[in-house]
């Protein structure tokens, strides 16, 4: 991974990396300034007022309110500027854009299992097109991990039992480090990989060259059958003893007891693992818990199936490929996922 032209700064390969570096330079500047100022004054005083004779006693100086206010107000203002800039950048970065491509990431002790919504599966490698907003939906099968891409200046913990989100838009094609940045045991330092950013056209060839077995939405539909969800939600989620799931994702759901929640990934996961926690109004909690019977990956597949249930009835697999691309038909046998690069 080559460093950029500024020494000691990592490759800048995402839309936010430049902004984070700018803030880093500002803070470095202030730190160097204060360090030089203080050590400079220190050295000057230590030399100028060195003890000349063992018997001298300098006149005491109690202090001055003016100076005290000066060197608390000014650092406070500087501190607030640092806070505001950092918080603003963070707030913008933490809101995933609406139309981003969704890629699912499952962290498992010492490897990253990645699945594109068009079905491609990768281990410890993530191919993404440059210039496209990518949203990572991440969960873990065991301990806490952390999906860290230094070149994009982003990281987020990956926790068992919940989904965490982060997004990026890569700007420069190339291969960048992927590190696990939350200690997860024996091979924490081996849970690494690479992010391969490609020109959109090359990405499309890669996509078709690696057509998946089946998209998660299709796999999800099969699970919807095998787990018995159909008996209460209908074959295509049109509803029955349980509420209709068509068009559920992203909609407002009113619950018994009056609150309304947005049906996001967390809500759907909770509805499957702990259905009684939030009961849809007008229903009583007869839905059993599927906690422990569904692996995080199967959960992702059910999730994509429910997301694919648009109001237009029949489930249309969501193509995350650029709109120009025809449906990814599973033409060629898939190349075995690239060996886990140590």
């Amino acid at each position, binding site marked *: *991974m080559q460093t950029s032209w500024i020494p000691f*700064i990592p490759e800048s390969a995402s839309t936010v990396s430049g*902004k*984070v570096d700018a*803030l880093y330079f500002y*803070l470095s500047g*202030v*730190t160097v300034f*204060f*360090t030089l100022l*203080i*050590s400079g004054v220190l050295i000057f*005083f230590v030399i100028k*007022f*060195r*003890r*000349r*004779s*063992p*018997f*001298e*006693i*300098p*006149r*005491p100086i*109690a*202090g001055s309110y003016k*100076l005290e206010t000066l*060197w*608390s107000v000014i*650092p*406070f203002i500087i501190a607030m500027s*640092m*806070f505001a*800039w*950092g*918080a603003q950048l*963070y*707030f913008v*970065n933490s809101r995933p854009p609406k139309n981003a491509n969704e890629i699912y990431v499952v962290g498992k002790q010492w490897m990253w299992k990645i699945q594109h919504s068009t079905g491609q599966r990768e281990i410890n490698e993530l191919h993404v097109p440059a210039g496209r907003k990518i949203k990572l939906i991440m969960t873990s099968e*065991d*301990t806490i991990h952390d999906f860290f891409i230094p070149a994009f*200046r*982003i*990281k987020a*913990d990956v*926790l*068992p*039992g919940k989904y965490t989100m982060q997004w990026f838009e890569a700007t420069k094609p190339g291969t960048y480090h992927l*590190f*696990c*940045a*939350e*200690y*997860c*045991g024996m091979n*924490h*330092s*081996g849970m*690494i990989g690479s992010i391969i950013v490609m020109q959109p056209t090359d990405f499309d060839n890669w996509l078709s060259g690696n057509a998946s077995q089946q998209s998660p939405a299709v796999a999800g539909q099969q699970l919807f059958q095998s787990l018995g969800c159909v008996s209460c939600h209908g074959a295509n989620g049109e509803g029955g003893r349980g509420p209709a799931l068509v068009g559920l994702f992203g909609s407002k759901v009113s619950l018994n007891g009056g609150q309304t929640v947005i049906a996001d990934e967390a809500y759907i996961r909770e509805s499957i693992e702990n259905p009684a926690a939030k009961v849809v109004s007008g229903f009583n909690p007869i839905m059993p818990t599927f906690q422990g019977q569904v692996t995080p990956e199967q959960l992702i597949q059910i999730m994509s199936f429910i997301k694919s249930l648009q109001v237009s009835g029949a489930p249309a697999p969501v193509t995350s490929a650029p709109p120009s691309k025809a449906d990814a038909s599973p033409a060629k046998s898939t190349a075995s996922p690239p060996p886990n690069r140590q």
Partner: protein
Amino acid sequence: MKAFETFETPSAARVNYINAQYGLKSWLLTKDHKRIALLYLGSISFFFMVGGVYAMLIRLELLTPQGDLLSSATYNKVFTQHGIIMVFFFLIPSIPATLGNFLVPMMIGAKDLAFPRINLLSWYIYLLGGIVTIYALLAGGVDTGWTFYVPYSTTFSNSYVIAAGLGIFISGFSSILTGLNFIVTIHTMRAPGMTWFRLPLFIWAHYATSLVMILGTPVIAITILLLAFERLSHVGIFDPANGGDPVLFQHLFWFYSHPAVYIMVLPSMGVVSELIANFSRKNIFGYRFVAFSSLAIAVFGFLVWGHHLFVASQSVYAGMIFSFLSFAVAIPSAIKVFNWTATLYKGSISYDTPMLYALGFIGLFTIGGMTGLFLASLAIDVHVSDTYFIVAHFHYIMVGGALFGYLGGLHYWWPKISGRMYPEGWGRFSALVIFVGFNLTFLPQFVAGYLGMPRRYHAYPPEFQIFNVLSSAGASILGFGLLIPAIYLVWSMRYGKHAEANPWHLPGLEWRTASPPPTENFLTTPIVTWEAYEFAPPEEMQVIGRMKDEPVSSGQ
């Protein structure tokens, strides 16, 4: 030099707290706060060496990108045990239990701490905690990181998590008892005339530290118990499989562990306030601001723990609140740094070893502290969290800050503790070696950190090797530098020049009794009539002013 009227008659100097009694029992069952301080000094130095050996192992391992010296499992145990021993068994007790125990009663004119028996009990509890932790290390070690994050520590680690946790749990009570003893002593046992604003700033700093010890330590005690309970019962409140939340553990852990870092640095700030004022023979600039800034750090220190959870799926809004408060908590530290610097203005500054450590502290604490501001700024922390940038930040402020304060204080009060002078030449030389070694060890880690080198990695991509080689080179210089005081301080106990009662000619109450002091510190309860750091009574001040070389009526 005008001698400060002392409260001891020369003949009394022969019998002091060291030779008052002999035999092992007189040490192991002592109730004298000074002897207990020495017991702590011995045990703390032992643990510092053990922690240091682990540090050397880490640096040796990281010399090469591949993990070839230690297996990854062993390396995980080494950095965990380095962290646990250095934090809980060296730095948290270091100044309060040694210099604090020795000096708090003396500086306020008391005969001993409020509860001498509880003071001895706190040493035995510390020792028991240490023994349990050493057992955990020898039996197989613990590999959860010093942070013990769940679910790794409860379900996935098969190392001695409960034993190590028990060791820390027990040592926590030693910290609580020390804090309790200091608070009660400072409130109820000040000599007549020793009002709050005549107290040396060393006492203010220890008062603030004790507040943090009392209010914070119980929370980590219960957190460790809950973790052990969950690890034993395989079910509990942190395991997501049954509805628990691992982030709750992080909230409970950091509720204590951030204030704990102020337990580590506040006593050193107290030492530096003493050193800067006394070695420039001037009262501290803005005494009340520096005193109250210690309290402000202790109180605000409890409002910022969430800055350790910025990337741990904490809500965005809670992150903003914690980020704002983390910047606010920096202001009292800024006030201290500027007041120390202002104290030097028009002072009469001497370059004795303690002063070198104090000046080193100010410089390195500024760097360490301001890199904390990088981490408090959300957007940057997202990039550098869990990288070597964090390792560099906390070593700069714990080793460059707290350890330098400890070494400075150790040298400054060594004549009072041992009755002997340390060799000044070696003192200054080792201080410089340590300063150079320290910077070479941890400055490159900032760079490796921003470049993205993750922490707790036993193997790393080759492009980070240059920084690790520099850091390991620095560590060997630092390690060598630290050996020198270890040697000459022990040497000085027998062969050092005998120290007078007031070798630095200072107004502090502890310098107005013999070196080493008698068991009851002062033969008669002193009556304090002078302000803090008052080098000459006000009425003489107009005459003296800044004298070039006219000797003052030297009473010595």
